[in-house]
Each structure stands twice: as C-alpha cells, then as structure tokens.
C-alpha cells in the first residue's frame, strides 16, 4: 500500500495566515520564472512548459486547506500546486530538465511529475486525464478509513471533457471525499472560455450533478483559502465539491506562445489581477509585514529558486540503460530491446 508520508509544508495548518500564503505564492511565481529561464538556457526537456504565473492563489489557497495524507492529481500546468503541497523545488526543476535527479528520474518531465510520498498521483498531459483517478483515490480513502480527501486540479479547458462529468457524477453518487478544482484562467490555449461554452458559469454544471459548487475570485488568496477550507470540510464528510477559481493566464499557453490571439488591452487588465501583488499590498496595508521584510522574504525565495537551476544544470540525464526499466515492476518479464532481438535472430547461423 502506498500511503503518503508526512512532510513539512510552509502553509499546512495555517490557512488563513496571509504571510504564509504570500510566501507560497511568491515561491511559485519565482519558481515559474526560473522554469522559463531553464527553457531559455536550453536546459528544459522539450518545449512543453506551461507556467502558472497569475494562478498562484489557486494552488496556495486550495492546498492550504489540504492536509498530510490527502491525494491529488494536476493538469499540465501544475508546478504551483505541487509546490504548495510540499514539493522540493530542486527535484522538481531537475525533473523539468529531464534529469535523473528529478522526481521521476527524468522520464516524466513537467507534464508527468508525481510523488507518492506527497500524495501527488501525477500531473497529466491529457486534458482531463487525471480527473477520474481522484474518484478511485476517494474510494480508497473511504475503504481504508484514512479521512483523506482527493483533489483533482484542472483548467477551464478540461470542462470540455466528458470524463469530468462522469467523474463528478460518481463522486456525488457515492458521497466520496473528492474535490474538483477548476482553475479558470479564461483560456484553453487560444480559446477563451466563452468561445468554448455557451454557459461559462462552470460551477452550475457541478451543481446539476449534485455537488456543492462555487466560484471564487482568484485575486484574493484569502478568499480562495476560505472557500477551499469551507468546501474541503464538507468533502472530508463525504460531500464532494467543485471549486472554480477565476484568474488570468498572464503569459502564453506554453513557453513559445506569445498569445497573438489576445488583445493587449485585455492582457493588461488580466495581469493587473495579480494575486501575488494583491497579497503583498494587503500585508503592507494591514501592517502585517513591512515592505523591507517582504523584500527580504522575496530575496530568500529568489535564492532558493536560483539554486534549483544550478542544481539542475549540474545533473545528468538518466542513463540509456534505464530505458527498459520500470515498464513493468522489478522482477517481471521485461521488454527485449530491438537491437538484442535482431542480433539474436541473425546469430542463428
């Protein structure tokens, strides 16, 4: 059995704590900036890197309501969520770089990162692909009476996928401790949400299937954390829920996309809804932390994240010999390499 182990998380158990939420959001923001740098330096594995800049409150806010032992899956834009659940940013960056020191030994990369210890059942390169797994994890939690919840994080685009409705229907029918988190950054690639559906009030769908559902403005991480806590409490009691976090994807869909399909004016307005800046201003305004203290905090975070790049660049790719490993469990019959096979066949003479 694979029960997530306990780890320290910056924000665990201190949900309404804005400084903690701010720190996590800043870590996510800075991490993503470094991911961009990794890409520019040609050190990332492939070009399919999806940054969650602008969406930090969803990750930090919802995850603050989760606890050790909870499980989750994410979409392709999941770095922030994993960080907020306690990931080691260096091992994350190494995975994004396709290095052996990464969470998945460089086989998964940004879109297939996972860590069973932290309950991360996996990011997914299939839009909607990770959603039904949380129904299964919910069945397991009920079966083993762990009190854990399982949360699926996905984008607005995933509301196009039928499997979301199948999964929500099951969760509601069986009263499973499942949370469905829709990070509505307004776009699925170049398609604005109102170009993908006639009714962009997405939470109404979940309601129609019998889930508790609401939409929260992602500008305010405290509001997100509050909604998260409220819903998660119900989820733990077997009332599955659906939470939409409204936000804006600050940059392109993937690293190379310059979003030519978006209006510059719209982008400016969108980026003005910056949850990190908003939280920072609130901390200053409420006199919780001074600007200089925040600067120090930001610098600490920057140093932490700088180190992830140095770490990653210094790592090596997985050895070719690892290619045939882990297709099946250790000790199980393994696939035979094409070359070996050809040699064997021709060696018959």
């Amino acid at each position, binding site marked *: 059995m694979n029960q997530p182990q306990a780890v320290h998380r910056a924000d665990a158990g201190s949900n309404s704590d804005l400084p903690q939420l701010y720190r996590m959001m800043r870590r996510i923001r800075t991490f993503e900036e470094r991911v961009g740098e990794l890409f520019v330096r040609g050190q990332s594995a492939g070009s399919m890197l999806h940054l969650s800049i602008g969406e930090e409150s969803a990750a930090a806010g919802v995850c603050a309501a989760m606890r050790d032992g909870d499980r989750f899956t994410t979409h392709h834009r999941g770095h922030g969520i994993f960080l907020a659940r306690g990931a080691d940013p260096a091992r994350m960056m190494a995975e994004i770089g396709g290095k052996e020191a990464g969470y998945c030994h460089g*086989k998964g990369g940004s879109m297939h990162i*996972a*860590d069973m210890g932290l309950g991360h059942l996996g990011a997914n390169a299939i839009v909607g692909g990770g959603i*039904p797994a*949380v129904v299964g*994890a919910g069945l397991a939690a009920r*079966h083993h009476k762990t009190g854990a919840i399982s949360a699926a994080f996905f984008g607005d685009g995933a509301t196009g996928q039928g499997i979301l409705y199948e999964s929500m229907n099951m969760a509601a029918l069986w009263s499973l401790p499942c949370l469905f988190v829709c990070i509505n950054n307004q776009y699925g690639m170049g398609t604005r949400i109102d170009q993908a559906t006639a009714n962009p009030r997405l939470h109404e769908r979940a309601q129609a299937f019998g889930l508790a559902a609401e939409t929260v403005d992602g500008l305010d991480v405290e509001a997100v954390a509050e909604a998260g806590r409220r819903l998660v409490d119900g989820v733990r009691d077997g009332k599955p829920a659906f939470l939409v976090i409204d936000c804006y994807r600050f940059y392109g869909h993937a690293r190379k996309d310059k979003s030519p399909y978006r209006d510059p004016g719209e982008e400016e307005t969108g980026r003005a809804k910056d949850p990190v800046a908003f939280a920072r201003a609130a901390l200053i305004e409420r006199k919780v932390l001074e600007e200089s203290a925040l600067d120090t905090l930001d610098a600490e975070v920057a140093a932490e994240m700088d180190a992830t790049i140095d770490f990653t660049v210094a790592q090596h790719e997985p050895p070719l010999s690892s290619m045939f490993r882990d*297709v099946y*469990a250790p000790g199980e019959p393994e*696939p035979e390499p094409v070359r070996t096979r050809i040699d064997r066949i021709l060696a018959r003479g």
Partner: protein
Amino acid sequence: MALQEMTYRDALRKALADSMTENPDVIILGEEVGRYGGAYAVTKDLIKEFGPERVIDTPISEPAIVGAAVGAAMAGLRPVAELMYVDFIGMTMDQLANQAAKIRYMFGGQIGVPMVLRTQGGTGRSAGAQHSQSLEAYVMHTPGLRLAMPATVADAYHLLRQALTKPDPVVFIEHKALYTLKEMVDLDAPAPDWGKAAIRRQGRDLVIVTYSRQVHYVMEAAKKLAAEGIEATVIDLRTLSPLDFDTIRTHVEKTGRAMVVSEGVMTAGVAAELAARISEECFDFLEDPVIRVAGEDIPISVSTALETGSVPGPQLIFESAMKLLSSREAV
C-alpha cells in the same frame, strides 16, 4: 477440494470470491456487477457476500470506470474494473493506454497500477458489430499492460487469481461463448505458472498456436487431423503478455510447420505478431510459411451465418492445416 465439475463462469466467480476473501483491498466496480450480478452473471451474488462497498455498481461511464480503477490502484486498492463488452474498450483506451499502462514508467518506477480490467469478447451470440469483437491486439500493442485470455475452466480460475496478485495492470479477456463451458477441475492442484503457455496436445507434424475460445476449435480440428494421420501440437498461450515464446520456438523447431489461430481481425492483429515472430525466430526450421487463420478484416454481422463465417471455426482450421501439410508434397 477434489476433482469437480465446474463452469468457466463459476470458476471466474470463485476466483473473485477467493481473492476478495484473501485480500480485503480487492474491490469490483463496473456496470451491473452488483445487484444484477453481471451481464454474464460472473459476479452473481458477490454483492451479498462482500457488500456494496466492495462490489460497486457504477453508472454507464466506461472512461471514468477505468480511470477510477487507476486511481484506486495507485491509492492502495486492488480494483477489478469490469467492462461489460471488450467492444467498449475504445472509450477507455486513453485511461488504459495513456494512464494505467504508462504510470509506472513516466513516474520513474515510483508506483504501479495493480488493477485488473475484466471483460469479455468474441462472437457467438449474434450480437452484431459492436458486441462481438476480439480486440486484444489493441492491448497487446500497448507497452505496460499485461494480457490474459483463458480458454479453460482451470485457467479461468488460476489466471484471474494470479492477475489479482500482479503488480501491473492486467487486461483479462474472457470469451462470451465459454461461460457455460463445463470441465472437471481440481482447483487445489498447483496452478501453472503465470506467463507460461500450455501444451494442449502434442504431435510431430505441425504446431498450432492459439488462445481463448479458438483453443477448443483447434482441438476439434486436431482430432479430425489425427483421423487423417496428421498430428498437431496445440499451444494455448494463456497470456499474450507476458508471451511465452520459448515454448512456441521449441515446438516449431521440432515440427518445421506452424499455424496461428486467432479470432481477432487478421491485419495488424495478434496473429500477425505471432506469425512474424515465428517466421523471424524459427526461420531456419520452417519448411513452409506460417499460416494465419484469423478473423476476417470485416465487421461482424448480426446475421448468424455471416457472423459464424467471419471468424475461424474448426472446419477452416482443419482445412488450412490439411492444405499446409499437403503443400509439403507439392514443393
């Protein structure tokens, strides 16, 4: 338990019940598996014995059924997801091939997906084009999946029991025409090894490699061949992944002639893989081309005559073997 008569269906049910008794993490989920007892009655009454939390009736949502099984397996259960007909596998191929099959690898070996996808396929009930297919090739072509297809009552039991101990996802395909098959079995006798083919009959003239229901057709044909003085070795693969090629090789090298028989459509199917392998690996031993007797490259009709004509039967197998053997003289 001593020797007793049992049906393929009852053996499957017993395998499920025994596994569930032994391992409290085994659960079943699928359409009509509970109160209804399964479309082919394999899970009959299991809900009474193990309760609705372990025998879970689902909505008609094949993609999410398989997806939920994936998540359940990752979270420590041993789910048996039932797909009522293998014909519905198309809607689940993403969850099966992109998730279940690849998770161990993508995640660098951290975790596996120890689930069983039970389903049934094949012709025999004039169920038409969308309820009569043999789609094992899709599964065999997907690295990361295991594939078991029992032909006998004992194998129905043992393979399912073993599948439920395997660390990787196993697709387990029953044959709808075999559920009522009755055989004398002693299920307490030691089980054959997982991944090992069975020699159902031994002969000097040719090897016929097959699996699932076609094993019975091949045995029927082999009997008729024997009456003509032709002795065939009949290999029942039992699992297509792992594939026990060593057994095939050993026997083909002895006879120099091979035929493969599969109910699945011929082109790019399981028969193609088997024929290609035998041709490559036993090249110097083959006196004649490997003959593929397989499903026609067409959909299945509801009309009984056309349905029967679309897949191999004892007569076609017999005739093909006769032709293969008589071609010896001709050359």
